[in-house]
């Protein structure tokens, strides 16, 4: 079996925008935003920040909480004046915040000209999934105390810094179990009956990377991915296969792995093994793949591309090794972006992504290495 390796591209950088707002109350519309701080972080380096106080329409009734008085904001701009600047600042980034989905985003979407459609990571949800019942509650102060970092002070800037520190701690806990994913295939021969379609194939991957398997129909791409995933139905002859995947291997097969009689949310609940079960987490996960509005819909009513997006949603969080069989099939531009995002998430937890493609020159999905199965 002839195959070739070469370095193709490096992965895009991870841009995070950690944000926090201070308001005059709890209900958007009744209350207004008086302070906003956004910290931009690229590849764990703080690169920029956005800060502004805003002059509300009404008097500030809760200055005792955040220390922002009417006199302090007398010369500040109205929130609407900063609309474009805010959008430009957060463009293309992942938004991070504590209770960001139920509070900050609700306010921002209410007061901005259009809704924010960025990916979001809520440290409240992250904490609930990582620490579970280790803490009495998952408030920012409780988390700060737990991780021994500066507690929040109800000033947007301090709260953002605390949130960022908490986020880093939570991520390190979440992914410390997932490291050193490795695959080593030596002189492997795969057969269906007596016919061998992969002969003496060798492949070794020792570091987080995205591998593209290339080859025409019948070259063994699907079978190889199924073999690595442990669901290959044929037989093997000779060679050896070693895999280290602390959080398992998951396969996005060419045919959907969804249950047609269940709704999108029920499928996600089942396929994530019950890890994503409550309404809010389900909504957030589906929001990432643009399927939040179809949560109640039966899978049998969805198009092929939509089904693929739902499957991708279930692959977002876990797995050290992702095997994707022609993931670009049925996917539009948005779908390709989602695949790239999923791959990035896998890399960030030191995982390996292997995907197959019919087209040698199809570079919509970013990859590091190419293996030619011709």
């Amino acid at each position, binding site marked *: 079996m002839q195959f070739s390796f070469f370095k193709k591209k490096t992965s895009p950088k991870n841009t995070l925008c950690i944000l926090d707002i201070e308001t005059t109350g709890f209900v958007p519309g009744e209350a207004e935003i008086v302070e906003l701080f956004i910290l931009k972080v690229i590849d764990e380096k703080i690169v920029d920040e956005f800060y502004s106080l805003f002059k509300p329409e009404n008097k500030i009734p809760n200055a005792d909480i955040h220390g922002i008085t009417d006199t302090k904001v007398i010369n500040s701009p109205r929130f609407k004046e900063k609309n474009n600047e805010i959008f430009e600042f957060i463009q293309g980034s992942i938004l991070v915040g504590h209770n960001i989905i139920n509070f900050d985003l609700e306010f921002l979407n209410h007061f901005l000209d259009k809704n924010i459609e960025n990916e979001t990571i809520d440290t409240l949800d992250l904490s609930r999934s990582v620490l579970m019942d280790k803490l009495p509650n998952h408030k920012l102060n409780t988390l700060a105390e737990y991780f021994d970092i500066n507690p929040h002070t109800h000033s947007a800037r301090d709260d953002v810094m605390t949130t960022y520190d908490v986020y880093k701690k939570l991520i390190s806990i979440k992914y410390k179990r997932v490291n050193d994913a490795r695959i080593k295939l030596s002189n492997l021969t795969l057969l269906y009956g007596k016919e061998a379609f992969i002969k003496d194939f060798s492949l070794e991957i020792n570091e987080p990377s995205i591998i593209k398997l290339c080859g025409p129909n019948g070259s063994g791409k699907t079978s190889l991915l199924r073999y690595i*995933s*442990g*669901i290959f*139905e044929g037989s093997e002859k000779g060679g050896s296969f070693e895999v280290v995947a602390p959080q*398992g291997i*998951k*396969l996005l*097969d060419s045919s959907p*792995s969804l*249950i047609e*009689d*269940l709704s999108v949310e*029920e499928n996600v*609940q*089942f*396929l*994530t*093994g*019950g*890890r994503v*079960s*409550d309404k809010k987490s389900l909504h957030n996960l589906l929001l990432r793949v643009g399927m939040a509005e179809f949560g109640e819909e039966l899978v049998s009513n969805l198009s092929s591309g939509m089904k693929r997006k739902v*499957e991708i949603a*279930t692959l977002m969080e876990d797995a050290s090794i992702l095997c994707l069989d022609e993931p670009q099939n049925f996917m539009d531009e948005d779908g390709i972006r989602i695949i790239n995002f999923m791959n990035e998430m896998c890399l960030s937890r030191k995982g390996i992504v292997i995907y197959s493609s019919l087209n040698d020159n199809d570079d919509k999905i970013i990859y590091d290495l190419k293996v030619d199965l011709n």
Partner: protein
Amino acid sequence: MNKLRYQYSFINVLIKELTIEKRRKQTLLVVAPISFAILLIFPLIIEGRAHVSTEILGTYHIVLLVTFCLLFSTRSPDSNFDIKKINKLAGVTQSGHFLGKIISEVTILLPSLIFFDYLAAALTNHPIQTSIFNYFIFTFLFSTCICSISIFVNFISDFDTKLVQILILVTVFIPIGLIMTPIWIGVSPDLTSIYMLMFFGITLVLVGFSWITNIKRF
């Protein structure tokens, strides 16, 4: 519940299977009405009246049980490869799959069977000749046997050759029905205990065999 679902994969499978059944309503809308029709037609064909004489009551009950269980077992074909693929994605273990599947199948079959039995008793004026306790124990063991066999046959035949599956299932269901039928017709209390012990042993063997096959297959 969510925590349990995460910790024990069989609960995840159980919830999935029950949700599918609730959505499809196959047992309620397909299996039960067809069985009910056979229940009404059978005495009319055999005796020309809605009454089954004592001589053929055993045969009548076996036919009904086999028909009902056959319809139930073949109601939703499963592809082994799809099961394997989906379980792998959901992180469901082999044992988790088997336990979840058998518990869900028994949960669906048991009440349907009880309902069906009582319907048959009412329509044929032959009441069930045993105590309620014995009846429930026997029906539970019978359901467990039927579900184990059904899952096992699904493993080995992949449910894509219906005729073969039906032949295998009928062949196995008839002897199981033969053990169950005396409970319906009525046997002496001493024999009931022996029957129960025997049935319990058979159930254990069938469940164990099916479980091992499941683990080897997946």
